[in-house]
């Protein structure tokens, strides 16, 4: 057991799902040809002025309301000054002293216990462009399509004490952003990014240790691994009586380690000052009230409702509400088949596995909820066995088939007709006279053998309850 307590704070950048950029009318569409979504404003031409996108304010304020922040009546945009080719103006417009939201919190559950993580601030800013570095030519290529795409940065208090807590906080944050419909939450494409500040201190010490800032983690797994590695690295240093250096470290996915950026980006001095091109932003009480009224049911509330309304376990409700798409899919399926617990089981055991394998979200699921609902009904009414239902699932999922039509076409209906089954039972008993004799002599374990044979003969379509009943009668 380590002698040190880890102290972790997270900075999250979430790309907002607006149609146009934060300070100009260029499109934010992803995957365009380079420099197609660029104008005089976002390319930093002289003499242009930024005009704030009203949706960005609404989205930032809504996130603040969702995590219990105070939304400031007046907030100020500031210039963060540095030079890099993907930043054509030579400064990024951000917020510094007076951000739009402050003093929020988010409760997360880790290993069954609740933990409240403070949220220091949420501010609005513009994204930078993208540099592509040529391996062969002595040049870098700059694409400004992303320049000016709106972001919010959500800064936590250093309240987390383990990699698990950090990941739980991140997942909760991402879930809220997606529920609000203000961010697509895609970590791999970079619309949800996280930097982690990690330091250690001896247990019981109030003063914070020297921290390292971790970057380049584009999945929850990377965040977990990078923080775990960093905690061990710093503990080793401290054990050896060495000092932790305050620096930025990049996570190396292949090696699973963090490595120093070697001070290249160090000694930042951004010389923030209020942007003279933008007057303070005012948010009125009426706006706030309207946005508060528009907030959807958030993940925690929805989870609680799933428990009370559908009788799900809190654990299952957690799984189903983590993604808004999945929760919507579940509710639609449950409504159509009126079997919420069964629908939940099908979604958690079969649907999520298939979605995961196909790398699809529930919103893009090829199998519509109506079809899953019909499958649940087919199984619950006894028309097909649960086993057959699971067997056909991958195919009806992949092709979005109506299970009822599929079952009829393939002749997979369960044989619940006792006359039809009786002949199959008679045949199996007639073909295995030795086993019948042994059974009657007391070797009752052979029941399983007979059931197996009958299932084989009926290609698994026999209703198991009926088979047992018939066998019981015939062997009595």
């Amino acid at each position, binding site marked *: 057991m380590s002698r040190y307590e880890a102290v972790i704070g997270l900075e999250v950048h979430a790309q907002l799902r607006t149609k146009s950029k934060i300070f100009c009318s260029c*499109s934010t569409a992803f995957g365009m040809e380079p*420099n197609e979504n660029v104008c005089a404003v976002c390319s930093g031409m002289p003499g242009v002025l930024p005009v704030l996108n009203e949706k*960005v304010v609404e989205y930032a304020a809504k996130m603040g309301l969702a995590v219990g922040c105070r939304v400031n009546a007046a907030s100020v945009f500031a210039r963060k000054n540095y030079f890099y080719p993907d930043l054509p103006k030579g400064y990024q417009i951000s917020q510094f002293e007076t951000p739009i939201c402050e003093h929020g919190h988010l409760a997360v559950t880790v290993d069954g216990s609740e933990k409240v993580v403070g949220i220091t601030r949420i501010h609005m800013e513009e994204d930078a462009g993208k540099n592509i570095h040529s391996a062969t030519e002595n040049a870098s*290529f700059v694409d400004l399509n992303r320049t000016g795409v709106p972001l919010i940065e959500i800064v936590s208090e250093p309240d987390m004490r383990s990699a698990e807590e950090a990941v739980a906080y991140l997942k909760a944050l991402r879930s809220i952003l997606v529920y609000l419909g203000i961010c697509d939450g895609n970590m791999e494409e970079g619309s949800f990014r996280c930097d982690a500040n990690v330091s250690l201190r001896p247990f019981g010490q109030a003063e914070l240790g020297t921290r390292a800032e971790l970057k380049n983690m584009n999945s929850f797994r990377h965040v977990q691994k990078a923080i775990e590695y960093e905690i061990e690295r710093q503990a080793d240093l401290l054990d050896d009586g060495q000092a932790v250096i305050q620096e930025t470290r990049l996570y190396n996915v292949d090696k699973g380690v963090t490595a120093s950026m070697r001070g290249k980006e160090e000694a930042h001095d951004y010389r923030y000052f209020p942007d003279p091109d933008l007057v*303070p932003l005012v948010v009125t009480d009426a706006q706030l009230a309207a946005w508060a009224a528009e907030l959807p049911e958030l993940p925690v509330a929805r989870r609680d409702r799933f428990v009370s309304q559908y009788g799900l376990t809190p654990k299952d409700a957690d799984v189903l509400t983590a993604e808004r798409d999945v929760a919507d899919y579940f509710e639609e399926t449950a409504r159509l088949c009126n079997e919420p617990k069964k629908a939940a089981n099908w979604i958690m055991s079969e649907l999520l596995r298939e979605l995961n394998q196909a790398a699809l979200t529930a919103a893009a699921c090829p199998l519509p909820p109506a079809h899953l609902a019909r499958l649940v009904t087919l199984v619950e009414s006894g028309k097909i066995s649960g086993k057959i239902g699971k067997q056909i699932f991958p195919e009806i999922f992949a092709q979005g088939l109506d299970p009822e039509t599929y079952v009829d076409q393939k002749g997979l209906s369960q044989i619940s007709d006792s006359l039809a089954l009786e002949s199959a039972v008679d045949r199996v008993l007639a073909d295995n006279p030795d086993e019948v004799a042994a059974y009657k002599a007391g070797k009752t374990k052979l029941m399983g053998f007979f059931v197996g044979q009958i299932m084989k003969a009926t290609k698994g379509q026999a209703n198991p309850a009926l088979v047992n009943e018939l066998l019981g009668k015939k062997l009595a």
Partner: protein
Amino acid sequence: MDVSPEFAAKIATLARLRLDADKLERFAGQMGDILKYMETLAAVDTTGVEPLYGPVAHVSPTRPDEVVRTCTRDEVLHNAPETDGRFFIVPKIV
């Protein structure tokens, strides 16, 4: 406030300017003069006065979230010192 040549050198580095020693000396003196002049303002008692971020007292105008294309890529790249018609090309940065 006196500005040392070392401080002037730091400011020059942040501004990506390379200045030789006699220029640093000269600019340090000039920066010091400017800052000293600005310090005149410090004589005013501003206790209880809200900071003013701009000389105009109106609220920030906003625009609706609508896409309007105002330039073609050719226009955007027109004055670039170097381009291949798709990207801005700059000296290698890593």
